[in-house]
């Protein structure tokens, strides 16, 4: 299978079931909502080292947000149920609560599994906090030096998917980066999906474990590292000299598939030789995204 002359390898991306919450952050301007969202999603690229994965899903206009101000929705994922509220409480408390003008709302209101994140953060108010029930939802008003910080009492948690991916195999680093940027731009408006790595792109894809260091749970993906072609069992063709990976997390499998379809098509451009995907033989993750099936 080829798209614009780029070979689509007969392989699949292997992804995992995670727990996901959607956080809506609003601010007096989009600038301040974004400042909070960027801090909240900072150092949240991979559960391997960050214990959570997060990213900005999309911007929201005033007509879409609960308080009629500009905002952003953020997806936040962890591997298990217990760590999601822990991460949210720590991170929202240190990033959104501290950021001028922002307020924080649940983006999964219909989900029955509720995390009492706002309820936990209320104690920052040191007894001066107050709650209000509006339209059946409880909100906490936490007095701060600026005025008041408003946060919804509970946030929904549901099963999500983490680790969807595809690899861009290019003739050189410049073409790989151009293709990756085109893919990220194309996926920017895809609902239910985030790209948790810097700029949406990963240059250091990993394999499970280590050939040399027992303590390492992930090390460089030597099979796709061009400088190691001569010294390892490489999976790269002779003409490929740079590989970049796009990692996708989302609320569900179909959202990931839809985003991969758009992203891969955008990445198929001159200088790119093939599109591949990372997997572990299908034994670790229950979600398998077959490239050719997605693009058919």
């Amino acid at each position, binding site marked *: 299978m080829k798209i614009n002359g780029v070979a689509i390898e007969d392989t699949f991306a292997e992804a995992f079931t995670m727990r996901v919450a959607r956080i809506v952050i609003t601010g007096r301007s989009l600038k301040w909502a974004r400042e909070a969202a960027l801090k909240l999603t900072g150092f949240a690229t991979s559960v391997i080292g960050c214990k959570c994965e997060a990213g900005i899903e999309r911007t929201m206009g005033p007509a879409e947000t609960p308080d009629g101000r500009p905002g952003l929705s953020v997806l936040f994922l962890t591997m298990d149920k217990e760590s999601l509220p822990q991460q949210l409480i720590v991170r929202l408390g240190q990033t959104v609560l501290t950021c001028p003008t922002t307020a924080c709302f649940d983006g999964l209101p219909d989900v029955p599994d509720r995390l009492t994140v706002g309820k936990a953060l209320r104690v920052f108010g040191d007894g001066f906090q107050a709650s209000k029930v509006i339209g059946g939802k409880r909100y906490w008003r936490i007095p701060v030096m600026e005025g*008041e910080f*408003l946060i919804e009492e509970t946030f929904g948690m549901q099963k999500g998917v983490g680790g969807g991916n595809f690899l861009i195999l290019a003739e050189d680093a410049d073409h790989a980066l151009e293709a990756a940027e085109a893919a990220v731009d194309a996926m920017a408006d895809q609902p239910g999906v985030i790209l948790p790595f810097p700029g949406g792109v990963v240059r250091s894809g990993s394999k499970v474990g280590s050939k040399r260091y027992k303590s390492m749970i992930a090390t460089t993906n030597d099979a796709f590292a061009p400088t190691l072609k001569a010294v390892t069992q490489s999976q790269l063709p002779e003409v490929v000299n740079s590989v970049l990976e796009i990692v996708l997390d989302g609320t569900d499998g179909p959202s990931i598939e839809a985003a991969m379809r758009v992203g891969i098509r955008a990445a198929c451009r001159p200088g790119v030789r093939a599109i591949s995907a990372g997997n572990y033989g299908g034994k670790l993750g229950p979600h398998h995204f077959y490239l050719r099936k997605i693009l058919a």
Partner: protein
Amino acid sequence: MLSLTQALDHPLVADCIVPDRFAALTTKEIATLRVTHGGRTARLGDFFKVSGERSASVRLEGNLEKVEGIGAGMAGGDLVIEGSAGRDLGLAMAGGRIDVRGGAGENAGGARPGAAKGMTGGEIMVRGTVGDDAGARMRRGLLVVMGDAGRGTGRAMIAGTVVLFGKTGPGAGRFLKRGSIVALGTIERPATFRYACTYRPPHINLLLRYLRTRAGVPVSDGQVGGRYERYSGDFAELGKGEILQWAGE
């Protein structure tokens, strides 16, 4: 639907008009519920034409200014009153919604005599004026008054929210422990409230937007995102409550 069939010359205590109670009753059973008219026991059907059954959505028609206790203790459902209601509307209610297209008498959303708590949940919307002691001893819930309010509005509130669009009489919020009185019109504050600051409360934005979309309340953008003076009080009590008075855009 309940339609009043005769003009009332005495107060009619009809605290049986409770939507969540009606949800389990037939038309005949609703008509046989007991009321008190001028101190004498009677049946609801003696004064109202009842149509429909087993529904928690109830509509009332007629001049109900002498009908007392409508929605008392209701815990759910919707009650729409096409006109004005008498005193004790939504007395000690715990849930559901009451929408009065006209005004309401004294003690709307208030407490039963001698009881510590008034309404403990739900929403009351009064499009006209209310009498004295609206929202008195409220523990939780929302009371919205589009017109003027009488004396002692929100008196001894424990928590909850009262939103007042018109002019409010003296003694509003006296002995209030917690809870919020949001005054978009003029209000006479007790001297035991203390000015805190002028700011834009984020929850008022949310609350007024909710009223605009849920109940079609004509709230201006200047009120939604406006500045409010915060007065803490009542310092004759806990002092953890507030009067938020609109101060313009």
